[in-house]
């Protein structure tokens, strides 16, 4: 019994590191390729999220560039909703209303700050346990074509 408890304890400590490493691997394998010929931004915007959670990202996009924003999430999380808003709160893009889903391409003619809001809809799992999943917000850029 004592040995069993120790194993459980070790697993509990090991889990976060293992999940963290999985996010890194997941992003590299599944998310970075979504940028295609865009140069990856240098920021690692990856989170572990749970059902019912929200995340926000404030980004600055500089003038005269083409950009791609790709939201990439682990299937365990199910549908991930995201909207992109201007500083004034106007919606620029919502993946639930767009055909392209989780990829948004745009150009800038002036430098702008945008606000991305990601939400994982709450759901009740059959086991009552909630599992985290990785979510990466990938941003790629290139000079305006």
């Amino acid at each position, binding site marked *: 019994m004592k040995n069993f408890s120790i194993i459980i304890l070790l697993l509990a400590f090991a889990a976060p590191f293992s999940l963290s490493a999985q996010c*890194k691997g997941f992003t590299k394998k599944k998310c970075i390729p979504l940028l295609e010929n865009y140069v990856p931004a240098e920021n*690692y915007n990856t989170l572990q999220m749970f059902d019912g*959670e929200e995340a926000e990202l404030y980004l600055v996009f500089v003038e005269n*560039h083409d950009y791609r924003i790709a939201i990439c999430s682990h299937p365990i999380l199910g549908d991930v909703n995201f909207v992109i808003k201007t500083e004034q709160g106007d919606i620029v893009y919502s993946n639930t209303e767009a055909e392209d889903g989780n990829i948004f391409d745009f150009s800038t003619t002036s430098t702008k700050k945008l606000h991305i809001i990601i939400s994982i809809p709450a759901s009740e799992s059959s086991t009552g346990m909630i599992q985290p999943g990785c979510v990466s917000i990938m941003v790629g850029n290139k000079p305006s074509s």
Partner: protein
Amino acid sequence: MHSCSDGTDEEIRTVNKTQQKDSDDTGKAEHVRKILYSVPSHIEMIRLVKGSGIEFDKSIMNSPNQVANYNSVKSQAFNLGVYGTDLAYISIFEQTQEVLNYFSAIKTLADELGVSNVINDKNIQRFERNIENQDSLIVFISEIFYSIDETLNEDERGYVSAIVVVGGWLEAMNIMTQNGMIMTGSNRDGIKKIIADQRHSLENIIELIKIYDNDDNLGDLLVKLEKLNLLYGELIIQEENTTVNKNEETGKVVIGGDDKIEFSDELLEKISQEIDSIRNYYVN
């Protein structure tokens, strides 16, 4: 900016510092809001520099010979960002004779900061093969700094990553403002607009540093950045709504809309001096 850390100190700190954490009655599902901040990359900043008509000036960069003088984590991280911008600067301005020296300085600091795995033999060879190919070099620099950010955040050292970001941004701003001071006519107006627009990045950087200021001894840097932000507050800005249009030919969404900004030469000089002062505090 902030990593996938699953309940570690860093994540808890971010959540606590930034927004609410609401539990429902069952305690099972929690509504947590996590906030991240991001700024333009070295490459984007230097593309702005080039687009403004600034000429290449080697003397404005931090010499790679200084690298041995950086012994604290803070000075190493700050100057890793500085050298990243300088490497982007010489790459975009095609001054490839300097590339190896700057890459070597970056490798030295990455080793000192414990992220030596990011610059391994394989990508050193790839780097050497692509020195003359600007496009490949730009992608390479972006990938290296993405990997540094990723590794630092995954290792629960987001505060180090934040200092790298500040160093890189301030180096680009120093190139812009020092040149802005000697430019004339429409070129000067153009660079002033670019410098003024960077108030958005400064806001994000301050919020990013605030995440770490209590626990990681970044208070002095925060004070300096807030002083710079106060100067930015002297800009007279008539904000225009962001415009979102679809280009009928390409079908691509175009985001624009310029604010009207009054930016005096005196204020440019004050901002330039402040940026120079912060940068030199960590570089010299």
